């Protein structure tokens, strides 16, 4: 088996807020292999963006390691992280905020090349702009002269300039109309194949994740509650939270009638951590033992779930259960 490109191990990120501590990320462990697209999904406040920011070292981690091709990014000085940035890039959610309004597209695309000493001529830029289905004439435009869909493609083009191995995409399609979304996803898939890119795709839009990602990880309250191959998790969701999340999405087909798992209340704040399942206060099927630490059950094929109800799953394999320490 190939070595993972990225290894995130027991990642914690806590923020101090006055006298309390916000537990944004609590013990997240996962690998990303070269050329695969991994979806990181969950609702606001689940820690998915914080996880990404830690990987990019835009945040200092509280605990845990993040290894990129064997180098622990949390242990090396910041200036050395910067040098490695050519291997891992990011596409941000809002292109209006992530593109410099005074930079022409040409300058925006040239800068990462110059920073990493990769610039030789503007023909690199022509190539890059055509790659994202824009025209050479767009190179001399400023962001305000582009439409939302065009700006987002400039953001994608910029992330690809240094031919990275890993690109983190933070909700890149959420500001786009539905009819444009499919074009952006097709473009991302094409680039992924072309450069053998690995993606970490952060999104609350599960329909997009289903069509772009090979694997998916579902986060709730700073923990990964379920992960597996996309078709396994979507066709056979096992954690009650994943089931609720999927059943909450309205299906654009009036002939489909589904039953919905409605979670009561809202996501609790991450100040006080209770032992056991993070969903215990909202779960309609909660058991007494859910208040105790929940092991990570293995359903085979890399499908893992931290939910007691997984024991009723046909592929449940108790011997491979791995215990998560309560924190």
């Amino acid at each position, binding site marked *: 088996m190939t070595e993972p490109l990225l290894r995130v191990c027991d990642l914690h990120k806590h923020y101090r807020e006055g006298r309390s501590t916000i537990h944004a990320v609590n013990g997240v462990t996962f690998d990303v292999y070269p050329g695969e697209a991994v979806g990181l999904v969950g609702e606001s406040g689940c820690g998915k963006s914080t996880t990404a920011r830690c990987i990019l070292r835009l945040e200092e981690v509280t605990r845990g390691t993040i290894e990129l091709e064997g180098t622990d990014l949390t242990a090396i000085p910041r200036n050395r992280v910067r040098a490695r940035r050519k291997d891992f890039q990011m596409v941000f959610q809002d292109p209006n905020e992530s593109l410099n309004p005074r930079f022409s597209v040409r300058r925006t695309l040239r800068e990462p090349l110059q920073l990493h000493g990769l610039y030789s001529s503007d023909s690199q830029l022509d190539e890059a702009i055509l790659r994202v289905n824009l025209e050479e004439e767009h190179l001399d435009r400023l962001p305000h002269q582009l439409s939302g869909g065009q700006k987002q493609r400039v953001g994608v083009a910029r992330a690809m300039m240094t031919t990275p191995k890993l690109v983190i995409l933070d909700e890149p399609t959420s500001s786009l109309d539905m009819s444009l979304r*499919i074009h952006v996803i097709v473009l991302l898939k094409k680039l992924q194949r072309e450069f053998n890119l690995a993606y970490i795709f952060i999104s609350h839009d599960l329909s997009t994740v*289903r069509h772009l990602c090979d694997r998916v990880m579902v986060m709730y309250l700073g923990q990964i509650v379920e992960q597996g191959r*996309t078709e396994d998790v979507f066709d056979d969701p096992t954690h009650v939270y994943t089931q609720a999340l999927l059943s909450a999405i309205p299906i654009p087909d009036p002939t489909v009638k589904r039953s919905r798992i409605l979670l009561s209340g809202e996501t609790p704040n991450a100040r006080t951590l209770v032992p056991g399942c993070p969903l215990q206060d909202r779960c309609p099927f909660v058991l007494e033992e859910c208040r105790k630490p929940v092991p990570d059950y293995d359903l085979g094929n890399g499908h893992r779930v931290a939910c007691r109800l997984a024991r009723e799953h046909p592929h449940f394999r108790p011997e491979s259960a791995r215990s998560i320490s309560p924190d």
Partner: protein
Amino acid sequence: MPEPLLQIRSLRMDIRDHERSRSVLLDVNFDVRPNEVMGLVGESGSGKTMTALAIMRLLPPAATASEGKILFGGRDLLALSESEMRQVRGSEIAMIFQNPRASLNPLMRAGDQVARALQLHQDLPRSQLRRRSIELLQHVGISDAEARAKAYPHQLSGGMAQRVLIAIMLACQPALLIADEPTTGLDVTIQAQIFELIKEVQSEAGASLLLITHDLGVVSEVCQRVAVMYAGQIMEQAGVLDLFQRPSHPYTERLLGSILRVDEAKALDTSRAIAFASIDYDNAGCRFANRCPYVLDACWLRRPEPRWLSEGHVVFCHLRNQEAA
């Protein structure tokens, strides 16, 4: 068939931008019947929010409704004076917006805002106002309503703030509710809760709901009828089942073709999606012409005549008219 509650007839709205003026709504016609959920669906720039603002007469200063009528209970809302309109707003037609926290008064406690609506529209004695407003907050699913009534908007989550707005709307007992993307920015599990609540209060109050959304999933689950808008024109209007099973306008067909469903994986095929191009508001004919794969000469010249395919299903498309001729 009962008399429609709201009838929009040949509505046109122009927005001035420096020297030139552009019609952001052109020849918009649709009805909302009593006790139904009518959807208005479209992407950004389609004019769906402008239509709602025209009904509420809350248009931006640069916009003028230059043609047409908005008939509500026999009166043309566009012809009412501002003070007459104020009587209609809230008590007869109420609207909830996207970004619920921005719609609440930031300096007033949630409970007081509900009480104020009660006071304005129901003329209750002061002693009953507080009790009734807490009842309303409980009714929209706010647990611990007594305590939440004392909260200021910034202390409420987005879902909670939308519930407060729904309580304010209920305080007014309107005949028509307008909800403009009421769950944008809310998480999907909260979105599901809010839609359950909206459906519940709508059927309970016997009111009609005009739901504005870009999400065809929401249309499919909540609405009975739907009008599809593009660039300020209605392209197609139908019962929900009809629209999904027999989409007849090329825009509707392509819009449905670009949907990615969460419950089934499909091959990504952009040849069935809508081509990249900016919206052409200036075309004298069908405004979808510059992106339409089947465009005809006539599409550049004049707006297509409506073609009725069945009871309640109408499409505006030269191609369909030509096929029928």
